[in-house]
């Protein structure tokens, strides 16, 4: 097995983008004798190559991962572990600082790593449309990739925090430089929002360090490692509740959970297509991942205390997001991306509801929903990108009858839309059902209210579908998108867009029919996770 070999695969998969950044920065700019900007082409394909290599590494990890080993809080059953002493120093007044370069994965992180690799790979293709400062764009893109991958691999809180912040910076520039008309506002909003979350996280991290004398997440999960007289020592203390809430808010902002969600519509609307894809596909998952990996197992008692509140927040997000998606109120200003952004709020609320249930079905469903939402929303945003590139508008009221003009596109889009409304045969269905089954056992009433999203989801998605694809094409788009045939040789999706969209569609359908490949990864870890939480929380039906 590869995990026992000395090949540091997690380091490779995380830091591979560095190599890409170096190459990209070294590519000289300039044109060749035909006037083609050669550097752009090289840079793009370097990004494709690097992310593809990452994807291959992710697949290797997937194939060599042993689902029988649970992980979560047990170092021995983590896999592909790399544990090195990184920063050791004795500082006056602080004492020994011991930060480790500690990476390892279990059943909760493997699906996320796979998701990150897939999304980062496919999002490169819509990035080909970026015309401005290509070099900077792809350097930032790969840096973002690095940060995200690191977050899912890190098992040392300090390292985790480092990657968490590292991904923030390129995201800020990617929205702020390559975004839409209100990009500065959106970028700063995103940045500050996340930073507020990070502050809470930093404070709690320092407190935890003082209580346990280590940044090691696994040691923090063991109550025996807390010194009795330290601030987070003991159990069910107010300060532990406060600390849990701090972490929870920090992660909830990323999810995003009502009422911390308002950065999302702005960021999505302004971000360029591939960045929306990554934002929805991977970034939102980091919040929920942080909860499972850090907030819940370190403070299980506090989670038990707030469990019902969290379930409520999940329910509110689900229904509220669905209503907001349905009710964009200014006719003529109804934005396709905003609709999807709010549907993301709704779908991520489902993840929180599933986690709050603390049932195996609910938790597995939640993680699977994270994966599925990543794939499906990535598809949706790319689909928006396709028409935005051609029509330069995303207004729901500006279109109509595209099914006639772009049949293949409509077919792909139908897969994504139907997956988003949880149609059986698509992966979203399985995760939705699992979440509902799990949460029904713990919170039947909340689950029934959340069930409204089944109807509302169908309503807003079909409404958008009708607005854009059915009816008659508006006069201004009767002709071809690009009469010169220079940029678009066909009115339908082109090859590059298909390369990005078709694999995602296949994943969605395949996992909808046969979800075991992903579910098997995490069941062991999730069951172990619930065993850890069990003494502290309310588990319905057990």
């Amino acid at each position, binding site marked *: 097995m590869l995990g026992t070999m000395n090949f540091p695969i997690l380091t490779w998969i995380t830091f591979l983008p560095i190599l890409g950044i170096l190459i990209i920065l070294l590519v000289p700019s300039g044109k060749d004798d035909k006037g083609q900007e050669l550097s752009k082409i090289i840079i793009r394909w370097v990004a494709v190559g690097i992310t593809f290599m990452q994807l291959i590494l992710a697949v290797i990890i997937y194939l060599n991962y042993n689902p029988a080993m649970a992980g979560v809080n047990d170092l021995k059953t983590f896999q592909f572990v790399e544990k090195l002493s990184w920063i050791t120093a004795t500082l006056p007044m602080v004492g020994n600082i011991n930060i480790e370069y500690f990476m390892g994965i279990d059943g909760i992180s493997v699906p996320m790593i796979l998701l990150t690799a897939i999304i980062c790979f496919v999002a490169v293709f819509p990035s080909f449309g970026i015309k401005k400062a290509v070099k900077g764009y792809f350097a930032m893109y790969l840096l973002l990739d690095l940060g995200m991958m690191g977050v899912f691999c890190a098992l040392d809180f300090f390292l985790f925090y480092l990657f968490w912040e590292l991904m923030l910076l390129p995201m800020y520039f990617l929205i702020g430089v390559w975004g839409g008309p209100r990009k500065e506002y959106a970028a700063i909003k995103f940045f500050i929002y996340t930073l507020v979350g990070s502050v809470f996280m930093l404070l709690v991290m320092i407190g935890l360090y003082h209580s346990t004398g280590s940044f090691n997440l696994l040691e923090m999960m063991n109550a025996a490692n807390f010194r009795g007289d330290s601030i987070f020592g003991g159990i069910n203390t107010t300060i532990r509740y406060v600390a849990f809430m701090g972490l929870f808010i920090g992660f909830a902002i990323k999810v995003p959970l009502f*009422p911390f969600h308002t950065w999302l519509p702005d960021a999505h609307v302004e971000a360029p297509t591939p960045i929306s894809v990554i934002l929805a596909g991977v970034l939102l998952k980091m919040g929920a991942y942080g909860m499972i990996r850090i907030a819940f197992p370190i403070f299980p008692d506090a989670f038990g205390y707030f469990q019902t509140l969290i379930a409520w927040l999940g329910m509110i997000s689900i229904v509220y997001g669905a209503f907001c998606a349905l*009710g964009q109120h200014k006719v003529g200003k109804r934005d396709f991306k905003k609709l999807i952004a709010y549907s993301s709020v709704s779908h991520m609320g489902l993840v929180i509801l599933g986690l709050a249930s603390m049932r195996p079905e609910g938790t597995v469903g939640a993680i699977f929903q994270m994966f599925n939402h990543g794939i499906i929303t990535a598809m949706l945003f790319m689909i928006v990108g396709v028409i935005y590139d051609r029509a330069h508008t995303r207004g729901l009221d500006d279109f109509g009858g595209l099914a006639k003009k772009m049949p293949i596109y409509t077919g792909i889009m139908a897969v994504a839309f139907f997956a988003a409304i949880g149609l*059986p045969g698509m992966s979203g269905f399985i995760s939705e059902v699992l979440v509902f089954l799990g949460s029904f056992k713990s919170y*039947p009433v909340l689950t029934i209210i959340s069930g409204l999203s089944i109807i509302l989801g169908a309503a807003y998605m079909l409404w958008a579908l009708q607005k854009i694809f*059915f009816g008659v094409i508006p006069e201004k788009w009767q002709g071809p998108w690009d009469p010169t045939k220079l940029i678009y040789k066909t009115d339908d999706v082109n090859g590059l867009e298909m390369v990005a969209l078709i694999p995602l569609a296949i994943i969605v359908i395949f996992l909808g029919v046969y*979800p075991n490949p992903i*579910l098997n990864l995490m*069941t062991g870890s999730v069951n172990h996770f619930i065993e850890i939480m069990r003494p502290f929380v309310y588990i319905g039906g057990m």
Partner: protein
Amino acid sequence: MTQDLVLPLSLLILLIPLLSFLINIFFGNKLGRISGVVGTTILGIDLGLAIAVAFTKLSSFGEIHVIQNRFEWFSLGSQKIIVGIGIDNIAAIMLIVVTLISFLVHLFSTVYMEGDRRYPKFYAYLGLFTFSMLGIVIANNFLFMYVFWELVGISSYLLIGFWYEKNSASNAGKKAFITNRIGDLGFFIGIMILFFTYGSFMFEDVFAGISSGVMPFSNPTMLTVAGICIFMGAMGKSAQFPLHVWLPDAMEGPTPVSALIHAATMVAAGVYLVAKVFAMFTADALTFIAVIGTITAFISATIALTQVDFKKVLAYSTVSQLGFMIMSLGVGGYTNGFFHLVTHAWFKAALFLAAGSVIHAMHHAMHHMHDHHTDPQDINNMGGLRKTMPWTYRTFLFVTLALSGIPLTSGFLSKDGILAGTMAYANLTGGWHWIIPILAFTAAGMTAFYMFRLTIVAFHGEHKTEIAKHTKENKLPIVLPLVILAFMSLWIFYSPNPIDASKGWFHRMIVQPKSAVPAAYQWSFLLTEEAAPAVHQTGEAAGSTEVKAENPHEVTAAGHTTGHYLNKFQEETHHFHYLAMLLSLLIAGSGIALAFAIYQYKVISADKLETRFKFLHTFSLNKWYFDELYQSTVIAGTLVVSKSLSWFDNYVVDGLVNLSSYVTRGFGYVVGIFDNYVIDGAVNLAANFTGFCGSKLRKLQTGQIQSYVVFVLLGILILLYFFI
């Protein structure tokens, strides 16, 4: 065929239409016109297999309740999600119903949809629909049921909105899907309650759990609630009041689709579901079902009286007949409810296909006359079609008789059984329950009336327009399915006795399953004395548990021989049989007579009646204002909530965020001023003072070396003065 072959072949039957879907969706453009032939051929093969399987099940293994397997779909560690497929007697019959009608519709559409730009897509969607519908038929667990339930919904959505250029079509598709989803939510909640309580999706596990006395939330009322929730799914799909509003709108779809989906199969899925999980309904749940069915049957019959759109009349008639089936199941008439489903499937499909034939002919005539404004579906534009379209007329007339419940037709047998059942039920329960048979008989009378009104106005008399005069009988692929379906509506297929079906094979094969509900919560007249029908399983799929019944041949499903009834209800039904038959014949006959009097012989003036009962007429014509009611309450309410929440999000939640940013910036501004003038002022003051001193002292620096020497000298002298 051996028993082990039944399930693999069923799976094959399920997957073959999916193949048709895949071929037509991916290669449709290359196939072009051939795609219709491909689709029809594939369905023909499917039909052959379905007949083989159904005959095997019914003839060789009829006494075995269900041939099924179970396998693991996916697992969550210790918790495994077990599903499976199973063929019981009703599934076997449904296999034939679905594949035969689907095949005939495929055949019919080769001509009807000719020339449509998306011809291959149409066949693809038909394939997808047939696949999903067959999935419902062979599911033996709630999860698969729900999966295919949704897939049926989506394929119906695609087919209703097939002509999406028309806004009304895409609206109708959307309305159908969303209305169905409301029912589905109830269905799903019901599934959650059952899964929560019994830990399995399998019907048999759930029934076993119920009969062992375990109740959801330890409360028998919750079992009723679960039953009603499951039934909500049926209300959505089978267009029961108050979720019936989507079905008439769904007539926007191509007419063959209406025949396949909105008359014979998909809308029957709700009835099928109720029949399939009949064992879990408590007495209260059954009462609810019966009431809903009765209301539906009555309301939609009244609406059908006044509609002028050919297809709308048929649509409301369908809703009404579905109400009859649901009502029958609700009162305990399991066999007759399902019987009516089957007989209704044939003649309603025939009616719709005949409507398609008429509309197709009208379209051609309009095309011929370069008329593009007349409504080809308005019956007032037709008239006299019996002369131009004889075959369509003959079949239409025959199936209309079947629908009206005239002897020698299958409809007579099933409707008579239902009406007798309602009387038996009312007699056994007493009190207000008598409303059910009263409304049922009234609805049956109205059925006969509006069907003959339709026949007379559209086919009899003189041509009302030039278009009607120019109609021509359609080609064979359109006429043949009509004839076949009309033929299927003969009594002989179900029972040798044209006035009593209870001795026929159908009633021998389709027997009410033993109720799983503990006796305390079930009507005593529905309880059976016999042991539960034996369950036989074949399990070749991986992970399936191999549970053989002790002795499948010990108990025969045909448990009641002559003179011995399954339960009190059946006995009572038999007693009311002749009374019900006489009454229904009388009522149907007077309905028909009235129709002839008004529309054929004009003894009574239709216009006068209209003005006399103006209010009732408008009320019926406007479909009891259900659409308006929903528009102003549910839809408007949802929109108001969503818009206000969206406003709230934009201005309050985001406003708070922006407010906090303004506050922070304002504070920053104040701090900035303080910093600029106070802190930085102090720093600048120190710097300025130093600069001032420097500027004064620099004067000493003359640059002349000799003056420096003098300073040095002076310095030395001063030092000397101090030291000495």
